[in-house]
């Protein structure tokens, strides 16, 4: 009973802090996932249709990001980002700028997500039957319209399982920002646990929150996948 009191929303309970942390985590995860998708879309098109130099640069990007720990990349990107912004602001005559934790998290995690998204989307675009893209071209669609109307809807059913995985990685990777000192769910939990010395209660509660996010996202992505797959033949049993 005592542990339930600790989780209540009004002080002395810490439930409100945990929920605030969860909200921050979800904010960063959503932003990073979206930013990563954007990079991934450009990256995938670049890898498929770009010139030899662009393709090599992109494969260096995906290889390096996938081999170096996220924690290290986040730190490097955090310092690089702050340096760039501060230099830009002093060049424009403003003073030092304090970087918002959410923005820094989205920037760092987004670039990591972008590398994985590039690979997922590249595979999905390759899986679209080339006849569909060719007929779009034959109808005289300009490239951007072709992408919006044909390629993206057709590849979505192939990309969604990978993207679901990426989203789960994004939600869990937000915990890494705790190490950098940003107060998302994991760090809020640790602060609450250290203050009350009931470690198990809080870490288990946070684990339950993360698990809930995972399970709900899994359900949503399954619905989305069914929606993207509508009209396609069921491949089960035909192989």
């Amino acid at each position, binding site marked *: 009973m005592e542990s339930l009191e600790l989780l209540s929303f009004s002080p002395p309970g810490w439930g409100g802090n945990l929920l605030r942390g969860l909200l921050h985590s979800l904010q960063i995860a959503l932003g990073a996932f979206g930013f990563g998708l954007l990079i991934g879309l450009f990256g995938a098109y670049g890898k498929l249709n770009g010139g030899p130099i662009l393709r090599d640069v992109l494969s260096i990007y995906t290889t390096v990001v996938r081999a170096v*720990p996220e*924690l290290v990349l986040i*730190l*490097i990107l955090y310092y690089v980002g702050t340096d760039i912004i501060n230099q830009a602001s002093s060049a424009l005559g403003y003073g030092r700028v304090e970087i918002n934790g959410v923005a820094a998290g989205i920037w760092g995690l987004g670039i990591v997500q972008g590398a994985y998204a590039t690979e997922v989307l590249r595979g999905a675009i390759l899986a679209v039957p080339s006849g569909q893209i060719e007929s779009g071209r034959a109808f005289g669609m300009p490239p951007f319209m072709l992408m919006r109307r044909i390629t993206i809807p057709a590849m979505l059913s192939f990309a969604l399982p990978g993207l679901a995985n990426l989203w789960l990685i994004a939600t869990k990777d937000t*915990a*890494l920002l705790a190490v950098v000192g940003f107060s998302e769910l*994991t760090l809020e939990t640790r602060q609450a646990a250290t203050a009350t010395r009931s470690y198990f209660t809080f*870490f288990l509660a946070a684990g339950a929150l*993360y698990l809930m996010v995972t*399970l709900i996202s899994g359900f949503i992505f399954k619905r989305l996948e069914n929606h993207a797959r509508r009209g396609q033949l069921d491949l089960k049993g035909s192989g």
Partner: protein
Amino acid sequence: MSGLKEWLLPHRIVMLLLAVALVVWCAMNLRWDWIPKYTPLAVEGIWRTIWLLVVSIFLGFMLAVPLGFAQAVGPWYLAAPAKTFCTIIRGTPLLLQIWLLYYGLGSIFPLFPEIRNSELWPYLRQAWPYAVLALTLSYAGYEGEVMRGAFRSVAKGQLETAKAFGMSRFTLFRRIWLPQAIRNVLPTLGGETILQLKATPLVATITIIDIYAVSSRVRQDTFIIYEPLLLLAVIYLMIAGMITLGFKWLENRGPQKRGSV
């Protein structure tokens, strides 16, 4: 070696030269004078990172085999707990798991005199048993899921043939089922091993001095930001490269053609 020809394309030569120029510029213009002082610590840190990686992968895989097997063909009362375990491990951040074990168990153990007086106590007061446990459980959770698919992927005919030869169930598992299951997922296991390498720096948060912690120490002592981080990234790239090469070697060792009866 067709690989060499690919490297000698004109634009690649230019890019290589640019990369070399970049490395030379970094070596000349950035501060590296801290390296000699921290080399012994760094070697120890690399050793600790690799040790943690190897131990947790070995123990984690030992756990993953029964977890995957129970999910693939086990009865429901074994499959359900195995599936729950994998879902929980894969659904929560590793950092949270590490902190739960280190701070949670670490705060409960001293309350029991039996544990405090046991011979294990000197070890339980250190951080590394918790790090090994957390990393092992995490690897087991992810690989349990991989092995579930792996056990299912082995062709039925293979198992039936083995049965027809009169192999006992254990021999069949050891000689036929497990080796083929592992071979089928070797590429996945290679990728997962690199993910595990990328998870090891999290143990620095519970006071273990791995190579990541060494670089943080350099940053705090000398206020040099980029150089230790860049060197750290290069070290991880090299370890990841070695893991990739190792798994390529393993993949090429086995027979290339697989029976698919």
